């Protein structure tokens, strides 16, 4: 009996000790991970790198998940999307559109991003290059860029509207806050034929935080009072560093669009 009690006590002690060791190791790893955040000479986090969701389109992440899986709410329900917040009038207009109207078919960039990550635009990977004056975001699939001043200058005026908007940034602690306005109304929020038009009143605020050396968290809120009933709070996005340090330059071609529209009709037979 005494032996059993002692054995049990030792076992409990071992478990406790092991758990304690694991806790300490986790805390230590977290501290090391946090301290390992790369920083620029001015002390801000360096967001530079190629970022993705852990895999490419068509692949699987380490957990086996698809990197293109749609966002879910806390209860597993589909998360709200930009079009889900359309006003009745905007929803009525949306019903007159279809996937064939998607500007992305003609190589037009999206206003936001088809996977809820503007760094990706159309695609599932993007690259950030940070300098003392700018954070530069490069998208791969449609070869676009966004130059975000972070040196305190005011937003430019007399800049024509663009499909991706005009961006300005500032630091709030270790968080990069990016504010985008001056959009055209000719791009959509997403690609892939998902009807998601917006107005020229679109306003986007994104918050980027490198939580450790390998992880980038992004929060975003989009408001568009001309078409939405309330701002769209985008589900938090968590990206990881990709195992390569350079995205590709691959052209988007309207030739593809012509193929889609039927260049391969039977009449083309030789």
């Amino acid at each position, binding site marked *: 009996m005494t032996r059993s009690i002692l054995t049990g006590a030792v076992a409990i002690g071992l478990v406790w000790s092991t758990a304690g060791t694991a806790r300490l190791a986790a805390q230590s790893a977290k501290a090391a991970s946090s301290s390992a955040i790369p920083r620029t000479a001015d002390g801000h986090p360096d967001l530079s790198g190629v970022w993705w969701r852990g895999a*490419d389109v*068509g692949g699987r992440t380490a957990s086996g998940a698809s990197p293109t899986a749609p966002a879910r709410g806390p209860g597993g329900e589909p998360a709200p999307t930009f079009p889900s917040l359309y006003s009745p009038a905007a929803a009525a207009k949306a019903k007159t559109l279809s996937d064939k109207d998607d500007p992305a078919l003609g190589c037009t960039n999206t206003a936001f991003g*088809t996977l809820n990550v503007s760094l990706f635009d159309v695609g599932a990977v993007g690259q950030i290059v940070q300098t003392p004056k700018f954070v530069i975001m490069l998208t791969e699939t449609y070869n676009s860029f966004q130059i975000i001043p972070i040196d305190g200058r005011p937003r430019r005026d007399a800049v024509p509207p663009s499909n991706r908007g005009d961006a300005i940034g500032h630091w709030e602690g270790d968080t990069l806050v990016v504010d985008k306005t001056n959009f055209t109304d000719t791009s959509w929020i997403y690609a892939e034929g998902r009807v998601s038009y917006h107005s020229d009143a679109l306003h986007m605020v994104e918050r980027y935080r490198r939580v450790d050396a390998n992880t980038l968290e992004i929060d975003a809120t989009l408001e568009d009072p001309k078409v939405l009933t309330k701002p769209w709070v985008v589900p938090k996005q968590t990206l990881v560093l990709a195992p390569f340090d350079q995205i590709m330059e691959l052209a988007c071609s309207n030739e593809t669009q012509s193929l889609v529209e039927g260049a391969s009709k039977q009449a083309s037979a030789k």
Partner: protein
Amino acid sequence: MKRTFLAVLGAGLVALGTGVPAWAHHSFAAAYDMGNTITVHGVINQVLLRNPHSWFVIDVKDASGKVEQWSFEAGTPSGMIRNGYKPDIIKAGAEVTIKGFRARDASQNRGMLSQLTTADGKTYGMFGPQEGPGK
């Protein structure tokens, strides 16, 4: 049977053993009939590694000797390449068999690629050799 056009209709998604991508630059489900599978054997006319999606264009000869051109849509080129696809690995003139889903517009010889098999038996999926991400 070489270079003979084989159209197998209605074989179903499961028969091909492939998944339908839930994500694409346009709506695959709107453009292609996932219940209408086809198998086409022919010779590569051209490979277009273009965004948003790549295309394999092949010349197919039917039983009477008439050649028709078919186009099959594949994945984003960068994704295909990172999955192990090499840009010059399949060249014009190569003999291939392509399985896929036919366009809803039946007037077009067009499909969504699910599997491409070369004459030496190597297979490629919509996003290349499917060797996994980032390889």
